[in-house]
């Protein structure tokens, strides 16, 4: 017969499978039969290929409701599934099951507890970060004025969160929509980063103080412990202080009308306390130690008198709109507003300026887009949430794997329950309540643990979170939803799988091989996904750590180790700086002493636009500059590439004529060759026809004054006498820093009796620049450990199970002469293959993600192949150790024990 020679044509298998999947079981036999009959009829009529194609069309044609709709079950699902008694019963059974399988319960609960711990902390952290500035009564009507500058010679616009001094008052005057407005000056970037407070004989430094308009407390809501928010900032030289500062200064929050003396950069001023506030209403991005009004002396005076609409974009401007204002329409009017008031000035300075409005509520979480803003970024928070989700998922997968792997043990239970009339829904209810119970226990353990570990976790993230369960209902909301979500995710697959067993085949002793093979494959997929997550985290942690090391260790162009900085701030200390330096230099540990106005690692506030001979202000380059002296080069070990160092004779008191050292980038940007640079004069025109002329006497190698995520900018130094260089830098060689610091302190107290002794290490200051990356690295590192640990818990559970199932096999192999080593390998092999596979999947994902992250750095490492090998090695190693712990144990077991009971 020809049938024997040629195989019978068959309809396409996948189409048949598809049909079997979607078609209602009670219709399937007839439909499939008809389809097959038609297929063979068509084979005769139009040939195999066309018949197959027709068959596919026919199958697709059946994807219709009438064929998909299942016949309602003849046994309606029990109405008692969610009856309180049943639910109590579910939990009863669940508790007994947990008690019976302690190891599995412990593994599951342990993994879930750790996962929940991380999850909960991250959720609290994100919630806290997003809570900023939501508490103001008019929060949705508060906006900050932001600025975008365009210069003809730069491509990208410069966006910043600040604006020029007269802009906000003019808006208040010109637009009726503005209800109130305030400007905020943070003097910190201008060198006033600490304030010396004196009250009676108490003297100490305080970090932050803002200078604000008197309407500040009418615009923003702060809780006042003393004083009247509406009037607090009306009088000049008044000061509103934080609760913490009040207690520090006066030991009481009732500090109204007390006076104190404060020294900023220069002069000592006397202030009167008119208010004490705290942040009990909510956190704000404006949370300094104290506020002083704009109508005081100093910076306030300068701001009030300044009329530059183009430059001086150094203060924050806030507007509170009247209810019902169309903010977009308002924003559209700003172009005409800036043209009307500052058009001439802008054209004179050859720049364009656009103003925008940013909701105050969003400020804290959108810091990355704008220069001059602090806070976090929405991207970082989302990343954290993602990681938290992944960790919890890894813990859930443990539960799924362990409960389905053990399904054979519970198959009989399911069979009996079904035989006596349990519906699928009540079985699912039972398994779900088991996972729910597990999650409840885990969360119950995690909540007090979070509370206990908060200080430690806060150290990692640099936050100051607290767990307030009594007053904060939203925290409870988070906890409850975490329980429900975790319980359902972890429990749904086991519940679905276990309740699908057919009681008939369970009792006949047949195992449904098809579904159990499917379940084993699904378990493998789950294990692989666990290790994909872990491997991505490992690779991420390694890359981030290496990038951070690169940033910190990379040659920044100067020596940062063994440099001690003495910042001298106190009023009246300046004349003594010279003798302080001389006495320092006399110490045996000190190699060299220099002074600067801004040391590397700090924002350099001064800049000047300069052009070279034969050009004009139109093509000027902005060059940042600092003052230093002839010891700068030797103290910081800066390489001079051409020209000479300063000599004391170069010091000049004439601002408009000076000798300067420039960095390579100045030459590059201004298109000057190194040979012609020496002796070249750079010029800058000032208002009133005055001209500034700086002569280049030397060129030094580029040094990174700022974060290495930025390109190096044009930079120069000019010489000044020691009393004008308040940051004293000493190059020190010693093994015994405490002794050196003590000696320095002795000199300090003799020369500056009124000022608290202070010192900094340059390398630590530079590391400060990378605080965000350090935090990120710490977080990723921590979570990597957690994820690997949880994955290994699951792997351990599975290996225990696998060893148990293969106990007889191992016994027989042993009797036949297998060695412990080969048996261990046999048991471990299955799992190690999965881990290797997951690394293969994880590598490209991690490579892509890390390149995305590295893109933000101007100076970055290459992701090399060995990082993947290392991460893979770690993952395989850890997995192998986990698995072999159990496999060695079962390989060592006496085969008599496992074989005699049959």
């Amino acid at each position, binding site marked *: 017969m020809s049938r024997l020679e040629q195989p019978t044509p068959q309809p396409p298998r996948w189409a048949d499978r598809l049909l079997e999947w979607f078609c209602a079981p009670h219709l399937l036999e*007839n439909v499939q*039969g*008809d389809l097959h009959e038609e297929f063979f*009829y068509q084979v005769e009529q139009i040939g195999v290929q066309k018949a197959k194609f027709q068959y596919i069309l026919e199958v697709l*044609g*059946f994807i219709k409701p009438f*064929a998909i709709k299942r016949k309602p079950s003849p046994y309606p699902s029990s109405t008692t599934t969610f009856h309180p008694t049943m639910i109590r019963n579910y939990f009863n059974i669940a508790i007994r099951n947990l008690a019976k399988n302690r190891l599995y319960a412990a593994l599951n609960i342990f993994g879930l507890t750790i996962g929940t711990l991380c999850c909960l902390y991250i959720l609290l952290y994100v919630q806290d970060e997003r809570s900023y500035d939501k508490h103001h009564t008019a929060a949705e009507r508060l906006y900050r004025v932001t600025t975008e500058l365009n210069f003809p010679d730069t491509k990208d616009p410069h966006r910043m969160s600040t604006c020029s001094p007269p802009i906000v008052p003019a808006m208040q005057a010109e637009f009726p929509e503005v209800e109130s407005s305030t400007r905020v000056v943070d003097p910190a970037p201008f060198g006033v980063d600490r304030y010396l407070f004196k009250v009676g004989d108490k003297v100490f430094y305080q970090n932050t103080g803002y200078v604000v308009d008197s309407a500040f407390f009418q615009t923003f809501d702060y809780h006042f412990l003393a004083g009247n928010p509406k009037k607090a900032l009306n009088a000049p030289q008044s000061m509103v202080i934080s609760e913490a500062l009040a207690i520090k200064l006066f030991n009481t929050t009732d500090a109204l009308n007390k006076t104190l003396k404060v020294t900023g950069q220069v002069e000592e001023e006397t202030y009167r306390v008119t208010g004490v506030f705290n942040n009990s209403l909510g956190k704000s991005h404006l949370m300094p130690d104290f506020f002083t009004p704009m109508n005081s002396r100093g910076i306030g005076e300068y701001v009030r008198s300044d009329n530059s609409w183009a430059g001086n974009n150094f203060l924050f401007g806030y507007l509170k709109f009247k209810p019902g204002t169309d903010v977009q329409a308002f924003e559209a009017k700003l172009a005409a507003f800036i043209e009307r008031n500052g058009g001439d000035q802008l054209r004179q300075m050859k720049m364009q300026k656009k103003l925008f409005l940013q909701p105050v509520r969003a400020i804290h979480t959108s810091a990355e887009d704008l220069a001059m803003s602090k806070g976090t970024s929405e991207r970082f928070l989302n990343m954290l949430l993602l990681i938290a989700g992944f960790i919890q998922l890894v813990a859930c997968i443990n539960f799924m794997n362990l409960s389905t792997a053990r399904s054979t043990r519970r198959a009989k239970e399911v069979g009996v329950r079904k035989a006596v009339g349990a519906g699928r829904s009540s079985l699912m209810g039972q398994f779900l309540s088991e996972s729910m119970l597990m999650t409840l226990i885990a969360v119950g353990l995690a909540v007090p643990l979070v509370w206990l570990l908060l200080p430690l976790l806060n150290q990692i993230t640099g936050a100051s979170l607290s767990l307030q369960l009594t007053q904060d209902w939203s925290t409870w909301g988070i906890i409850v939803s975490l329980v429900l979500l975790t319980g359902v995710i972890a429990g749904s697959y086991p519940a679905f799988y276990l309740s699908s067993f057919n009681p008939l085949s369970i009792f006949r002793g047949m195992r449904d091989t098809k579904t159990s093979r499917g379940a084993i494959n699904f378990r493998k997929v789950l294990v692989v996904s666990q290790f994909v997550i872990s491997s991505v985290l490992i690779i991420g942690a390694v890359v981030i750590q290496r990038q951070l090391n690169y940033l910190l260790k990379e040659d920044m162009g100067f020596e940062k180790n063994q440099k001690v900085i003495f910042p001298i701030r106190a009023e009246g200390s300046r004349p003594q700086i010279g003798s302080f330096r001389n006495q320092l230099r006399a110490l045996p540990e000190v190699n060299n002493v220099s002074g600067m106005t801004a040391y590397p690692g700090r924002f350099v506030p001064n800049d000047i636009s300069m052009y070279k001979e034969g050009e004009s202000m139109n093509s000027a380059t902005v060059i940042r500059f600092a003052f230093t002296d002839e010891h700068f080069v030797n103290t910081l070990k800066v390489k001079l590439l051409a020209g000479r160092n300063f000599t004391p004779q170069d010091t000049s008191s004439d601002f408009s004529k000076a000798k300067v050292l420039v960095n390579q980038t100045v030459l590059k940007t201004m298109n000057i060759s190194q040979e012609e640079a020496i002796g070249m004069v750079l010029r800058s025109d000032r208002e009133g026809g005055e001209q500034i002329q700086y002569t280049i006497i030397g060129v030094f190698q580029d040094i990174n004054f700022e974060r290495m995520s930025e390109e190096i900018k044009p930079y120069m130094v000019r010489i000044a006498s020691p009393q004008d260089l308040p940051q004293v830098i000493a190059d020190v060689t010693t093994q015994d820093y405490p002794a050196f610091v003590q000696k320095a302190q002795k000199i300090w107290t003799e020369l500056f009796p009124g000022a608290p002794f202070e010192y900094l290490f340059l390398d630590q200051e530079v590391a400060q620049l990378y605080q965000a990356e350090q935090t990120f690295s710490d977080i990723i590192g921590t979570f990597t450990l957690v994820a690997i640990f949880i994955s290994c818990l699951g792997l351990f559970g599975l290996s225990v199970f696998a060893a148990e199932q293969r106990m007889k096999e191992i016994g027989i192999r042993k009797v036949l002469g297998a060695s412990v080593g080969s048996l261990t390998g046999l048991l471990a092999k299955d799992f190690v293959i999965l881990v290797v596979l997951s690394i293969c999947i994880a590598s490209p994902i991690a490579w892509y993600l890390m390149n995305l992250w590295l893109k933000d750095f101007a100076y970055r490492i290459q992701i090399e192949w060995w990082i993947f090998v290392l991460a893979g090695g770690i993952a395989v190693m850890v997995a192998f150790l986990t698995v072999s712990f159990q496999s060695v144990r079962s390989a060592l077991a006496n085969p008599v024990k496992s074989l005699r009971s049959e």
Partner: protein
Amino acid sequence: MKRTYLGEFEELVLLTVAVLEGQAYGVVLLHELVAQTGRSLRLNQVHSALQRLEDKGMLSSEMGEPTAERGGRRKRLFKVTAFGIRTLEEIQEIRSSLWNRFTNPKTDPSL
């Protein structure tokens, strides 16, 4: 009286089932319908019509013998119920009376 109406295709299927006298099932019906009407039809249309007719109580069905070309699957054989026959007759009556009036307009008493 509320009664069930038949679609044109349903009527065709019902008639064909009646014609095939107890030997009607999916594929045969399909071939018969294609042969009679010359339309291009698919099995799913026939099946859905059969199901609708059965739901309306005009067809009844039982499982027949398995055959080899169906991969050992049984076929579902359809029969027209008494209600189905009555419906067909009613349709026929209405049609013929209308046809009568159409071809012999003079004899219409209402004119």
